[in-house]
Each structure stands twice: as structure tokens, then as C-alpha cells.
């Protein structure tokens, strides 16, 4: 009833090309941002920040990065954990090796190193694709697992193999409460998500999608596969690298190589499958789903009065995830994002069916 675009005429190209062409959407997004930046910090408890919101924001960022590669450019990657690790360890090295390095520069530096790493491991994508490429990206994963646990210079000669980020601050702003950490992650996510959204609806985003849909045909109409694929690997790895650095610095504080194992890669892949391949908002949905489901599985037995042992809960979680992935692939291959857009479409034409 309120979600109508009647009377909203577009009189300029600018107005036609906005991200949110409908007025109600713009209002809703502004309200959502106000909620996230003002209301949530005032209301949420430390536990909610640490257990729900911060992991959600960082995972959403990682899923966003992976979605650019898999969802938009169609290059499947099972090495996301490795790209996150590169970001985290590079940022760590920037922090400890250069005195007085600003935190933001370290984080972005981590992203840039991950970008280079991602482009190197993206090179095989020029010759192979699909299943073969998935295996090739696994090489990145195992190589990083080995490097972070064996090479001393990566961990700055830490004797236990784990590294710690130390106190965080940006230009005098000490980031030590969970609320401040949340705000930092939220700000970074907003900036990068906006950038990603604009990238995928610009020329380069269309090139990625053409490559995804059929790369030989795309090459025929003049899209350079090397340029398109490597840029997708670069952008994706940059975002994933920043997410990795945030995961290490902000969420974990101190971490071991196992924090970025192959399980992490699979988790991110699941997030974008469930959330929606080729959709920015889908990455957020997927991450939210992934963070909330374990909490939900922990609480529901309590409410129902059925005590579940931790082990059983873990196995149950595994099974539910597996079943959901198969379910989504069968029923809604475009994930939660498609459900969301269907719902919006229905709302627009309500009360008529079409």
C-alpha cells in the first residue's frame, strides 16, 4: 500500500541510474543505516556485539568479496580462507614491522597484499575453469596453511605460532569496547559494500557477468577474459583480505593458523549459496543466516526443555547446514536474495497478483 512508485517520475539520467530508484527504498535504507549506526550501539549488550554483530559484519564482508568472484564472475574458489589469512597476516606484519603504522593503512595494506596473492592464484583461471579451478584454488589454501604454520617470518618469529594484534586505535580514537569495534566494522562494511555495488553495476561488473554466463562468447564480443577474470580475482581478494584482517584484529584479537582453515572457505561458500549468488544483499543475508543458525540451535532445545549435548548440537548443525544447502540449490538456486526480491515485487503490485 505504501510501497508504490506512482508519481515518481525520473527526469534525468542521474535519477534513472540511482542504486535505489524507488523513494521508499531510499527512506528504508536511510532508516536502516540510522538504526545500525545509532540505535544498535545504544541498545545492544556486549555479548550481542561480540557473539552476533561483529562476526556477522565481518563474515558479510568476506561473503561479499567471494560473491564478486563466484556470483558475478563465475569463477569458483575454495581458497577464501587462504585469502583471508593473507590479509590478516599481512596486516599483522605491517603493524609489527613499521612503527606507528596507522591501523586503517595496515588493514588496507592487508587487503592489497591479498589482492596480489589472489591475482597470482587467479592466473590458472585463464586456462581452466569450473571444477578444475576449484581444485586449483585449493592449492592456495594448503599453501597458506603451510606457510602460516611453518614460515617463521610470517608470524614475526612467534614461538607458539599464534600472533596477537595488540590494542587498536585510529588517529587517537581508542577502539577497545565491543561497541567501538562494531562501529569500525560497520563503517568498513558500508564503504566496501557501496563500492562493490557500484562496481557490479558499472562496465566492469557487466564484463564479469558476461564472462560468467559464457566466457567464449564474451571474448567474441570484445571482452578481454584476462582483464575481466583477474580484476574479479583482485577485487574479490581485496575485500576478502580486509575481512580476514578484521577477523584477526577485531574479532579474534589473537589467532592461530587454524583460524583460516579450509572450513572457513567452505563456510563462506555456503553463505553465498544460501544468501544468493550474484547479489550484494544476498551476501548479507547469507552471513546473517550463518551467524544466527548456531545460536538458534543452541537456544531452541532450551526453550523446548530438551537438553542437547554440545557434540550433538555440532553434528546437528552440520546436518542442517548440509541439508539446507541441498534444499536451496534445488528449490531456490538464487538463495534468500531472490526470495527477498520476489517479496518486494509482490508488495509493489499488491493487492493485484501481477
Amino acid at each position, binding site marked *: 500500500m505504501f510501497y508504490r512508485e506512482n508519481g515518481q517520475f525520473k527526469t534525468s539520467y542521474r535519477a534513472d541510474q540511482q542504486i535505489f530508484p524507488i523513494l521508499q527504498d531510499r527512506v528504508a535504507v536511510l532508516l536502516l543505516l540510522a538504526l545500525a549506526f545509532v540505535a544498535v550501539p545504544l541498545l545492544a549488550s556486549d555479548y550481542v556485539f561480540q557473539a552476533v554483530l561483529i562476526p556477522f559484519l565481518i563474515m558479510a564482508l568476506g561473503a561479499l568479496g567471494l560473491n564478486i568472484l563466484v556470483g558475478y564472475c563465475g569463477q569458483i574458489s575454495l581458497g577464501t580462507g587462504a585469502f583471508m589469512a593473507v590479509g590478516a597476516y599481512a596486516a599483522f606484519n605491517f603493524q609489527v614491522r613499521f612503527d606507528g603504522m596507522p591501523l586503517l593503512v595496515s588493514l588496507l595494506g592487508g587487503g592489497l597484499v591479498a589482492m596480489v596473492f589472489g591475482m597470482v592464484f587467479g592466473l590458472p583461471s585463464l586456462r581452466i575453469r569450473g*571444477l578444475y579451478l576449484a*581444485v586449483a584454488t585449493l*592449492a592456495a589454501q594448503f*599453501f597458506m596453511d603451510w606457510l602460516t604454520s611453518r614460515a617463521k617470518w610470517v608470524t614475526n618469529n612467534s614461538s607458539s605460532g599464534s600472533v596477537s594484534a595488540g590494542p587498536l586505535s585510529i588517529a587517537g580514537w581508542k577502539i577497545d569496547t565491543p561497541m567501538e569495534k562494531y562501529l569500525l566494522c560497520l563503517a568498513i562494511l558500508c564503504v566496501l559494500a557501496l563500492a562493490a555495488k557500484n562496481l557490479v553495476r558499472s562496465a566492469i561488473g557487466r564484463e564479469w557477468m558476461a564472462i560468467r554466463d559464457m566466457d567464449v562468447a564474451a571474448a567474441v564480443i570484445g571482452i578481454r577474459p584476462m582483464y575481466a577474470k583477474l580484476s574479479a580475482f583482485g577485487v574479490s581478494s581485496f575485500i576478502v583480505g580486509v575481512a580476514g584482517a578484521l577477523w584477526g584484529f577485531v574479532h579474534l584479537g589473537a589467532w592461530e593458523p587454524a583460524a583460516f582453515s579450509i572450513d572457513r572457505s567452505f563456510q563462506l561458500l555456503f553463505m553465498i549459496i544460501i544468501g544468493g549468488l550474484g547479489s550484494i544483499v544476498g551476501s548479507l543475508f547469507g552471513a546473517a543466516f550463518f551467524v544466527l543458525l548456531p545460536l538458534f540451535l543452541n537456544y531452541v532445545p532450551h526453550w523446548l526443555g530438551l537438553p542437547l549435548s554440545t557434540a550433538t548440537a555440532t553434528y546437528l548443525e552440520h546436518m542442517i547446514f548440509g541439508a539446507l544447502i541441498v534444499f536451496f540449490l534445488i528449490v531456490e538456486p538464487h538463495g534468500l536474495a531472490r526470495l527477498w526480491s520476489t517479496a518486494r515485487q509482490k508488495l509493489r503490485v499488491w493487492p493485484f497478483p501481477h
Partner: protein
Amino acid sequence: MGFFLETLFGGLMTGMLYALVALGFVLIFKASGVFNFAQGAMVLFAALAMARFSEWIPGWLGMAPGVLSVLLAIVVSILIMVGVAWLIERLALRHLVNQEPITLLMATLGIAYLLDGFGPMIFGSAVYSINVGMPKDPVFILEGMFEGGVLVSLEDFYAAGIAAALVAALTVFFQFTKTGRALRAVADDHQAAQSIGIPLARMWVIVWSVAGVVALVVGIIWGSKLGVQYSLSLVALKALPVVILGGLTSLPGAIIGGLIIGVGEKLSEVYLGPMIGGGIENWFAYGLALALLLVRPQGLFGEKIIDRV
């Protein structure tokens, strides 16, 4: 020289076991065009079933553990794997006919998660042992040629023998039986196979059952060597570069790829490892496969990949 040969033999034996896991991949890929990521989970599941039933069956039937109970456990495990195959076809694959290979790959990832959770939940999650009576004594061979001979484990020899027999049987099955031909047709093109009257659903159940049986064999061999535990499902990750190296569509390729990777891994660890810090076993195989992919994208023995627009 003796040490080198020992490493070589060790590598060959490990390679044979990788090859067995890889065989499961190739079987399913050949017959349904699905890259089955759940093979590792199937190995774990089959091994868990085998370990638990060989423990439970003597108790239920009131007999002493022996050859008969082991055989019974194997039969029950095979039945379970066939059941799993039927369920996978019924609940997942049937609805995904004619989808992109990537979609199918991700579906098998989901199945892997499902099995990884389901197995330990019903069979328990401790470390179990499987004992099918394979001799475990090490023996010395070639004592005439070198001083001290070369130390090998007899168990490995049996395992290699079983693997070779399995490969021979599967090759015959694929080449010379009617079902095998139908399976190859399905692999070529789902739609075309269906249109000439090949029952797709039954073919998929058959091939997933065969892969389940192969998984059981792998589970028994690995399980009796290392014990049945979660890490068993990770051998699948070891087998991936093997399949890539040998070619996704070639049964002999899986074997030769497995041997190359097994030997390469051991030799590189022993001779190259100390130079760059050790522990390179884990990614060496992937590096090798990656290097080959750049030169020969279809693997050593795979069918040439031809793109049609």
C-alpha cells in the same frame, strides 16, 4: 639406495590408497558428470558403519567375533551404503538433473556436510578400530641386493593387491557390461541418454552404490591402518589433486596419478623438505597438479576438453 627404495615403496603404497579414493571420484564423474565432493565423507561414513557393526553384530547374535562376523558387518555396511546412494539420488540428484556442474558440485558439498554430521551422530564419535585380519608385520625384501634389505609393511602389499583387483574389476564393468555402457552414455549427456531410454535414476543409484562400496574398501584399509576418526574424511582432499593429475574421466589415470602423487609427496618431503622447512607434503600434490593443469588442462589421461559455443 636402500633408504631411497624404502621411501619409494612407502610412497607407492600411500599412492595406491590415494588412488582408491580418487577412483570413487572418477567413477561418479564418469557416470553422472558430478564431481563428488562427498567421497571423503562417504569413506568416513562407511568406515564408521563397518567399525561399529563389526563390534555390535557379535553382541546381537551372540557369536564370537571372527571371520563370519566381519563378513556380516561388511554385508551390512554395503547395504547401508546402497541405502545412502538411494537416498542421495532420491532426495538430491533427481531434482538437479541438467543443472550446471558447479551447482552439482556444491550440492555434493552439502551432502558431505550432512554425512559428516550424520555419521558420528548415529555411530558415535570416538576413535574406533577396524580389524579384518590383515597382517600387520613388517617384512624385509630384496635382502640379497642391499645390505639390510628394504623394510615394507605386509599390510600395504595386501592393500595394493585389493586396489589393483578393484580397478581391474571396475574397468571390465565399465567397458564390457551393458550397465557400464549405459553409465558412460549418461556421463556424456543426461538428456540424450534419457531420450534413448536409459533409466537415469537407476543408473545414478547404481554408480553411487558402487562408489559407496569403493568408499567402504578405502574405509576398511585406511581405518585398519590409522583408526576410524574424523580425519578420515580429509583423505578426500588428498585425492583431489590425484584426480586432476590423472584426468577426471580415466580409471587408470586415477591409479597412475595416485602413484605419482604418493611417490612425489614422500620423495619431496624427504629430499626437498629440509631445504624449505618441512611439512610440504600437504601442498606439494596441489602444486604438482596445478603445474600440470597449466600445460594439460585435461590431466594426463583425461579426454580432451572441447568448448563449443
